[in-house]
């Protein structure tokens, strides 16, 4: 383990990513960023962080890889059964009253949650009038999301999650198995728009009735969380919903007073 990495070196790398490539990680959890960098250093056998910084300076492709590794891209389909039950039973019936449904998955990573949402919308007969925006900071990750191809080894767990979340079909009807991979039905992505968007530096680009951003802001410091929550507030219609991860909250933020929590879920409605 290359543990001889100083805080100054980490700051130097983050400044370089900001100034040369426009990616701002200064408001990210330092403990998390350091772990990710150490992981990358030991995987790629760099002789210290200074050598990696040199490479990042000269090689834009490598810088992109580095950015992808600093951010956490772990996600699941139908994670947290009660959350998806609440979506299906409480949120979607409200959205059904709109002629057109716009949903934003912010920080969608490789897209597992967007496909989960597409499945829910299809089963509730809302998909035809929905538009899903799936965005992430990493172009490479968005490319994976767009493909909709996930390891077959995950399907047993996802199928279990789906059933626990009140799934109505055989989960296997949504994908075809192929050489260790599960390719999800093309129809599930007909209404999904995949794009890169940086929550830290980019602005609001539309108004939505539902924004889903789960386990993304856990890596942000308080100031950055506040900035992003304001961005979500600006991007939500009145009476729209904001859905966060199982341990996230809008409490103690400036938007708190304008929102009301839905049941006991990590979902808030803009009043």
């Amino acid at each position: 383990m290359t543990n001889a990495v100083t805080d100054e070196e980490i700051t130097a790398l983050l400044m370089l990513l900001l100034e040369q490539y426009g990616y701002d990680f200064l408001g990210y959890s330092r403990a998390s960023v350091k772990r990710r960098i150490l992981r990358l250093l030991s995987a790629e056998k760099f002789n210290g962080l200074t050598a990696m910084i040199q490479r990042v300076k000269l090689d834009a492709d490598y810088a992109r890889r580095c950015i992808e590794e600093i951010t956490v891209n772990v996600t699941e389909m139908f994670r947290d059964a009660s959350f998806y039950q609440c979506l299906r039973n409480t949120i979607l019936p409200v959205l059904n009253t709109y002629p057109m449904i716009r949903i934003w998955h912010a920080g969608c990573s490789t897209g597992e949650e967007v496909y989960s949402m597409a499945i829910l919308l299809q089963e509730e007969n809302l998909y035809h009038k929905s538009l899903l925006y799936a965005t992430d900071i990493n172009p490479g990750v968005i490319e994976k999301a767009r493909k909709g191809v996930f390891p077959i080894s995950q399907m047993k767990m996802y199928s279990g999650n789906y059933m626990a979340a009140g799934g109505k079909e055989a989960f296997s009807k949504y994908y075809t198995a192929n050489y260790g991979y599960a390719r999800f039905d093309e129809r599930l992505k007909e209404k999904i728009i995949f794009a890169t968007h940086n929550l830290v530096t980019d602005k609001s680009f539309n108004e939505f009735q539902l924004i889903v951003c789960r386990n993304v802001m856990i890596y942000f410091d308080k100031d950055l969380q506040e900035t992003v929550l304001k961005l979500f507030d600006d991007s939500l219609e009145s009476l729209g919903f904001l859905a966060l991860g199982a341990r996230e909250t809008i409490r103690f933020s400036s938007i708190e007073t304008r929102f009301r929590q839905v049941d006991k879920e990590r979902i808030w409605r803009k009043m």
Partner: protein
Amino acid sequence: MAEDVDKPAQKLLLIGGSAGSLEVILTMLPHIILRDHLAMVIVLHRKGGDDSAVLISLLKDRTSIPVKEAEGKEIIAGGHIYVAPGDYHLLIEKNKTFTLDFSEKIHFSRPSIDVSFQTGTEAFGTATIGVLLSGASKDGTEGLRSINSAGGISVVQTPDSSVVDFMPANAIRYASPKEMLNVTELIDYINRL
């Protein structure tokens, strides 16, 4: 945050365990006195991930020390017991706050003991005490090594007092812990911190 009035702890006691460790914690808790400068953070492997409420109520029943699930951004206050939530890694920042993390499992586990031990020792340096209890995982050994190299104190439950001795035995073999203690000795040791 509700805990903002509390002062950050000066010393950090990290307790990690897997199979057979919950019983040890439940046995110890009624006898534990946690002084104001010391925070205790418990990182337990568990099946199915997300049943923190049950775990916390079990612990609360056995002590008058405040017990709560660790929350992101929360200040790590002395005189408190924090429990790592299920299905997240619990990271400790240099400003003595928690960060939750949903990155890859380590040794098939989230929370990972190594992750909390490693980041905890970065934040608290020589004032870090890591205790590794009974378990069937390799998790924790790397964490104890980090604590050793930062000048903190590494402790393991004696293998013969452990229901599952793999985890402490692995740590003894690869991390050379400073102390090996049975449950009674552990209680006494913690109360003197």
